[in-house]
């Protein structure tokens, strides 16, 4: 899965599940999810579940940190990096 597609799917999931669809299109890929309170503990568990079950990427608990979950872009980068590890890609 390309980085662009991963980013789009994470963005869409957050919009649909945590922002009531984000009708005003406020969510950007660099929007601070922690500071906005979009990602609380409950939502993070649901997002990690989505990444595992729909994107096929297991996020280890130690990687669920403020840096990796800062915004859509950083989450997508984490997912892509984990995909590479899984697939053995450089």
């Amino acid at each position, binding site marked *: 899965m390309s980085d662009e597609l991963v980013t789009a799917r994470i963005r869409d999931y957050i919009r649909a599940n945590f922002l009531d669809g984000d009708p005003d299109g406020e969510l950007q890929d660099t929007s601070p*999810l*922690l*500071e*906005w*309170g979009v*990602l*609380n*503990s*409950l*939502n*993070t*568990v*649901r997002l*990690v*579940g*989505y990444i*595992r*079950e729909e994107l096929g990427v*297991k996020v280890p*608990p*130690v990687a*669920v*940190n*403020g840096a990796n*979950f800062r915004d859509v872009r950083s989450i997508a980068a984490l997912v892509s990096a984990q995909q590479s590890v899984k697939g053995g890609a450089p």
Partner: protein
Amino acid sequence: MTPVSGPPVLTADMFLLHAPSVYDFRERDDMLFAYLSDSDSVNVTGVYEMYPIGWFSLRQHLAEHGLDVKIVNVASLMLQYPDLDVRRLLGYLRAPVYGFDIHWMAHCHGAVELAAEVKSVHPGALTVFGGISATYYAEELARHPAADVVVQGYDTLEPVRALVDTVRRGGRDLAAIPNLVYDAGERRTGFTHKPAENYNNAVNDWSYYQGTPADSPLTSKLIMTLPNTGCAHDCGWCGGSKFAYRNIMGVRRTLITKDDDLVVRELATMGEAAKHTSIYALQCYSENKRRMHRYLDAVKDAGYKSVSFEQFVLTPEDTLKKMGESTESYIMLSPESHDPRISKAAGRGTYTMEQMEAWIPRALDAGIKGVMIWFFIGMPYQDRQSVMDTVAYSEHLIRKFKGWAALPLVCPMVPFLDPGSRFFEEPDRHGYRIFHRTLADHRRAMVEPLWHRRLNYETEWLSRRDLQDVSYDAVARLVEVKGEYGVLPAFFAETILRAIAETRALLGEMERALELDGRLPAELRDTIRAYNRKVLAYSSDQIVPAERPFGGRWFDDFTVPPELLAAVREPVGAAPGERRSP
């Protein structure tokens, strides 16, 4: 013990030290900090690293009288830094008085042991205990060599202020300070200081918590508010009930409220950070409508992200509407059982499950984001079948409300039935049998290898062993159901089920070894140590059943600076006995 070099010592007029439940819990291989043995209802470990929120009031009240109180969460520091040399840390904490809590008895072992360490490191200092459980066991606690003074009552702001003021001036004559038990229990100053109208009017100042970075979204900011002390309710199992307060504290009026204005000021102390802070609104089930609505206005004005409200009745519609308009609101109901007879015996039973199911859609329509429904194991009349029927009823709720909108949870009453509660004091009348009566009994129980033997009670309907077994059966089945209906991501459900299976197997092995050999073999001890390290590496709870790293919670330590921490941690590779001492 004087540090000769290194970081400067921390000084205060009083240190409040929150101990782990068991001291020293690290590397223990003779008892299991088993999954679910801390009930898994709150985001802490079996070390119970959350200190009483009343400590904020003490700190604030003494600050208003020019006294410096510092809170050090030793339990949390020991979890975060397993190589922490606690004695060395204590050497850097200098005050004439050190205070301790035993917080619903969970700390009856650790707090007393830590106080003994303090007396060893600072022989001239005074160790002081307070709180509801300390009041109940005041004389026995005061007879322990580690406890110099016990302050009785739940209005201890002024007695503690007078005590610290006297001792810091070098005084040791405590006879004029009310509510004290000291000199090995030989001297008492009379339990005369009772809650006045405005006894707990201290603002909890959350400003220290504003700027702390969120290291993980799993530990996003959560504070607690406590608008009153005491209780308007009378649950038979609770040591904070009307029955318990009247007997332990010798008062008639059991509910004392904080001034509205002060609660509002307290909410304002988070400043801009309120926007990404959630509140757990403790004891708002004792609040009347006027005060509740004022609180909601203040929450809205301050801009808090969300609030979870504990409710003992089905919230009326005008309050629901106001909750929905004020913030993201969650309601925590606790019928304790689906069975009305058991629910009523547990002190609830103010609504039927049919009424609750009719109320939930109205709550959601009013803007409530979710309702959590807690069931309890260990109540009168509750047998194994009844517990599993509660789980079956939970499945019905999940199917009907699609999970998170109305989320059922179940937990056992552990580790203790509160001393002072009606069921503890009148066990025969309510179908209970009490195993541990004294403070010493409870201290021994806290280090029992198996958690069902830690319990201080069983009922006519469930033995201690039954309580353990049915707790695992119930939580496992509920987790399975949540996995099946997609409430929990499948791998979270699988992880919990694996943890339960591993825990039960290990408990079984330990029980067999203890029964057959009377001891735990070395190989099994290695397994226990490895298990404990794993379980105590993260916090978790059933609401968000993920491994959550320590740090960033309001009760984690914010007092000990990094340079001091660095100085009191074991050098890597240090052999036992090579610990540095100040």
